[in-house]
């Protein structure tokens, strides 16, 4: 009896070739570099790497990066939620323009994004003298770093949510309203549960980028060691000073934070698999 192959499946050899290509690409471009980061960091032993991370400037950089992410990510989650809610659920003039504008941070070079803030808030900028009179530092200080990070990471949550919310339509919200729910009740009990996985995913991506952002932050930070150097900036400083172990040790922590983010996401997905399946459109 002839063995028929399903019309959508390929020849086993084709499959093997494609799998080999995929695996080798992943190995060369993702696994190998990541492994190098850790092996370089530990090349002179764990204690040397640990000392490099445990000195005051490195600790300050780690603290600053975590603080920037802790401020920028929740704010971007809130703004992103508001923007995608407005875009997906309502019709208004300039909607297309707003959607394009939201993508701007992705298409602009991060260095330019940083420069924008220097031009606005810097000493020679539009608001520079006013801010100096109030004795409020934006550029070369925490507020500037947070602003630049927020600008660069703004699209992550929105891009995740708009397709999701558009796809889900307004039916369930209309149903909730006709059943007597207020706008806030509808949002809290119908909209939010429906988008929470998309929101979480956007927030995680946003967080990963917020901790790793280099270009925009580099322009507004001023590289004051122990004060305005974030982890990526600190890695560059150490590398330029030929402190390879230190540079890779700090880089390892950055990589670990990224891996932790992914593990956290997978754990949530695994734990709530049933619920994700239930809220998925049928």
């Amino acid at each position, binding site marked *: 009896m002839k063995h028929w192959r399903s019309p959508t499946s390929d020849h086993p050899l084709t499959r093997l070739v494609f799998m080999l290509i995929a695996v080798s690409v992943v190995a060369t471009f993702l696994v190998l570099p990541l492994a190098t980061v850790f092996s370089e960091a530990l090349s002179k032993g764990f204690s040397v790497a640990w000392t490099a991370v445990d000195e005051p400037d490195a600790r300050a950089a780690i603290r600053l990066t975590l603080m920037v992410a802790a401020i920028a990510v929740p704010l971007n989650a809130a703004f992103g939620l508001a923007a995608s809610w407005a875009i997906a659920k309502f019709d208004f003039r300039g909607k297309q323009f707003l959607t394009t504008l939201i993508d701007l941070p992705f298409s602009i070079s991060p260095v330019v994004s940083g420069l924008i803030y220097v031009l606005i808030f810097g000493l020679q900028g539009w608001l520079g003298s006013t801010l100096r009179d109030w004795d409020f530092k934006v550029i070369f200080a925490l507020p500037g770093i947070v602003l630049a990070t927020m600008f660069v990471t703004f699209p992550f949550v929105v891009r995740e949510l708009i397709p999701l919310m558009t796809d889900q339509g307004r039916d369930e919200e209309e*149903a909730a309203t*006709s059943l007597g*729910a207020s706008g806030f009740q509808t949002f809290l009990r119908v909209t939010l549960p429906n988008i929470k996985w998309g929101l979480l995913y956007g927030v995680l991506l946003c967080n990963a980028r917020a901790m790793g952002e280099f270009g925009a932050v580099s322009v507004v930070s001023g590289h004051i060691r122990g004060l305005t150097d974030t982890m990526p900036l600190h890695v560059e400083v150490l590398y330029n000073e030929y402190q390879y172990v230190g540079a890779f040790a700090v880089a390892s922590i950055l990589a670990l934070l990224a891996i932790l983010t992914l593990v956290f996401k997978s754990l949530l997905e695994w734990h709530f698999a049933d619920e994700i399946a239930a809220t998925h459109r049928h």
Partner: protein
Amino acid sequence: MSLVVDSVVKRFERFPALNGVSLTAPQGAFLALVGPSGSGKTTLLRILGGLEFPDSGSVHFADLNWLDVPARDRRAGFVFQQYALFKHMTVAQNIGFGLSVRPRRQRPSRREIARRVEELLALVQLEGFAKRYPNQLSGGQRQRVALARALAIEPRLLLLDEPFGALDAKVRKELRGWLRALHERMGITSVFVTHDQEEAFALADLVAIMNAGKIEQYGTPEDVRRAPKTAFVAEFLEIVPHQKSAAGQYRNDRYST
């Protein structure tokens, strides 16, 4: 508690959806809006539910200026074409939603809500389904959950948008008779939209035949059938036998060769 719609006009960006629609229905009537797609029937239903607003004209229900009543205060049970069940809630949570979002003072206790949900589940013949999620139900079951959810708020007006549109013929016939019986038992005013004239005539006390944003004829099924007022109505009523013979013809052509 009669329903009075007077000269309602609604335009969307490109096309007029309703071109001066007027009708009156007494309390407890079962009213069908029937017509081809794009005739404005769903728009009219959405206006009655407060999900859409007319550009001009007026709607009165239960001696209220109905357009001044916000959707959430209308107590108009709306059953959507695609059911619009809350996917992340169980059947019981779906049905109890309308009660659980009431302001604290009017909100029944948890136990009372659970009791009402049980009652409604029995009413729509879905006992034992309380803990299921909508995606674990068949189309007909989802339809009945949507209906129970709308009935939970003790609606003054029941609005149904193509309630049987997505169901197969057998289930559709079953639910149809059941819905009519339910309507009579509850004594509320119901309006439903359909493009199936057979369904409209079998179910409703009053039918409004709509075409291009206007009501071509409005009356009891008997009156409309006996004396079609316009060429469109006559044609629309004939469509069913006509289509059947055409389909038979097609089948013959195809299979005789």
